[in-house]
């Protein structure tokens, strides 16, 4: 249905900090006004809660990873479109161990991580690369908020987590990183996803979001005082300083240029990545409500390619709005 006021949710993470900045700096309002609509960007501290709220219909869009989008809203029957492909993790997620050890040394050990999250996925990919499987290790579900404190206890020897936790943990003596998302580039993707139906009925909503996002991107990328000020604001909002934030950005492949994002989205490798992801989810029994097969939930990719049930497409990668941004048509 047509409406003129929208709400999107975001949570604190290096690649999503621009959303908060857009709201604070008025960039979002400016773009919303251009299209005669109203967009409210709401910060939610708990990432999972923000996605749940979106799935339950409290928001029209939410910042999420490709994996969580597939398992939560798409799996829950909410037809969802990836409007903006903001970045992918290029080292932001990592497997950390105490001592100088490798995967093979972890056999039989407990690994602390947020179960069923991208960390879990990263570990599975890492074990696979080392010729092992999850059965070789034990997993202790550990909340992200307490990961740093948990790692500081003697009983914890290995953990998988993301930034800024990775940096904080790496500061402890005797910690080494044995695997990170730079080893699987492009597989952990940070998106702004929106309700497909809402987007179809209100293309202006998509245009406003994309316009505001890419204006912020160019501001952020610029090596100017204004750019630095913007990044400093984002750093402080995430509880760190500019240096800390820049360090996090260094392990994040931000798509400052919409053309890069379009190219990434249209690359057939994305389909391959999502195939990995859906198999991982299915193996862990969380690919949607009682999914009987890995094909139960359909996904659509640019150029008409699909994965899974074409009659039940719930997750769509649609570069149209990024293309508009790239072509300056917003």
């Amino acid at each position, binding site marked *: 249905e047509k409406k003129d006021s929208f709400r999107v949710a975001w949570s604190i993470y290096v690649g999503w900090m621009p959303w908060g900045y857009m709201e604070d700096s008025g960039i979002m309002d400016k773009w919303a006004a251009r299209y005669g609509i109203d967009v409210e960007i709401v910060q939610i501290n708990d990432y*999972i809660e923000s996605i*749940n709220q979106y*799935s*339950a*219909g409290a928001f029209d869009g939410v910042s999420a990873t490709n994996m*969580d989008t597939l*398992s*939560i809203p798409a*799996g*829950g*029957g*909410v037809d969802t479109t990836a409007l903006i492909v903001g970045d992918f993790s290029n080292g932001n997620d990592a497997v950390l161990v105490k001592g100088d050890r490798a995967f093979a040394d972890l056999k039989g050990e407990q690994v*602390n991580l947020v*179960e*069923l*999250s991208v960390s879990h996925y990263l570990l599975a990919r890492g074990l696979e690369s080392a010729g092992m499987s999850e059965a070789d290790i*034990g*997993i*202790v*579900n*550990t*909340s992200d908020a*307490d990961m*740093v*404190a*948990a790692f*500081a*206890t*003697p*009983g*914890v020897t290995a953990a998988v987590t993301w930034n800024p936790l990775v940096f904080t943990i790496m500061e402890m003596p005797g910690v080494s990183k044995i695997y990170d998302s730079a080893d699987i580039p492009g597989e952990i993707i940070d998106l702004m996803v929106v309700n497909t139906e809402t987007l179809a009925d209100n293309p202006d909503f998509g245009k406003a979001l994309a316009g505001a996002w890419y204006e912020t991107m160019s501001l952020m990328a610029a090596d100017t005082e204004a750019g630095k000020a913007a990044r400093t604001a984002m750093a402080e909002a995430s509880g760190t300083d500019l240096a800390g934030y820049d360090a996090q950005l260094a392990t994040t492949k931000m798509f400052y240029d919409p053309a890069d994002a379009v190219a990434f989205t249209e690359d057939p490798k994305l389909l391959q990545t999502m195939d990995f992801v859906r198999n991982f989810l299915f193996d862990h*029994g*969380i690919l949607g*409500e009682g999914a009987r097969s890995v094909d139960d939930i359909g996904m659509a990719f640019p150029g008409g390619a699909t994965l899974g049930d074409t009659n039940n497409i719930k997750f769509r990668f649609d570069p149209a709005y990024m293309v508009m941004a790239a072509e300056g048509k917003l």
Partner: protein
Amino acid sequence: MRWINRRPVRSVAVLLAALPFALTLLAYVVGSEVRRAENPNDKLLPAPAEVIERAAELATEPDRRSGDVLLWRDTAASLQRLAVGVAIAASLGLGFGLAIGLFPAGRSTLASYVAFLSLIPPLALLPILFIVFGLGEVSKVVLIAVGITPFIIRDLSQRVLEIPTEQLVKAQTLGGSSWQILLRVALPQVAPRLVQAVRLSLGPAWLFLIAAEAIAAQDGLGYRIFLVRRYLAMDVILPYVCWITFLAFAIDWSLRRFSRRAFGWAHTEGESL
């Protein structure tokens, strides 16, 4: 007849007691219908039939990965943590409650400190708890104990203070030493109150248990709830919440029954909840 004198007859009382439960259920069913009319896959309020089916599954089918039936494994793990944590809290509560309530010196030393402790939000100090007690079972038990002990201490010391001076004086004239008075006069008189304080703390105890299990665990009712919260599986969360509520109720009921049996003198008159 005044409402304060009108006692509903048994059958009406049963109906009245059922009413709020029925209304809650109805609200759920209607809410679920409305939401699923909009999105048939809605996860937030799944259809009651679905929830029941899923509950049966959880209670009977062994997990693919571990071979255990998840519900029972989680229940055993959680109940054990709860029991140990509450037992520690009750012992500490009784000991310090008596020390504070009965001995002026104990009161001077500890009353303000316990009042201060009871005001610290334990969840905010989790990192320190972890370092001191590790991340295993101990820290979960300790979180429960830390969370509810101050309340129990304060409640019991108040009750000890409320023992009529006449009784303490009489006990002294009967030759009781401080220790004997503690053992034979104060302790048995606050024992029923200890049971009641434990009953009142069970709510917070479950809360801390769930919080502890949400932070680091491999099984337990709270662990499962937070794990499946990741994909809003209310069809799992709701049976688990109902089950927790049922367990809590069963424990509460047993404690009340125990109190009536063990401390008959405290239940000779008046109704109590």
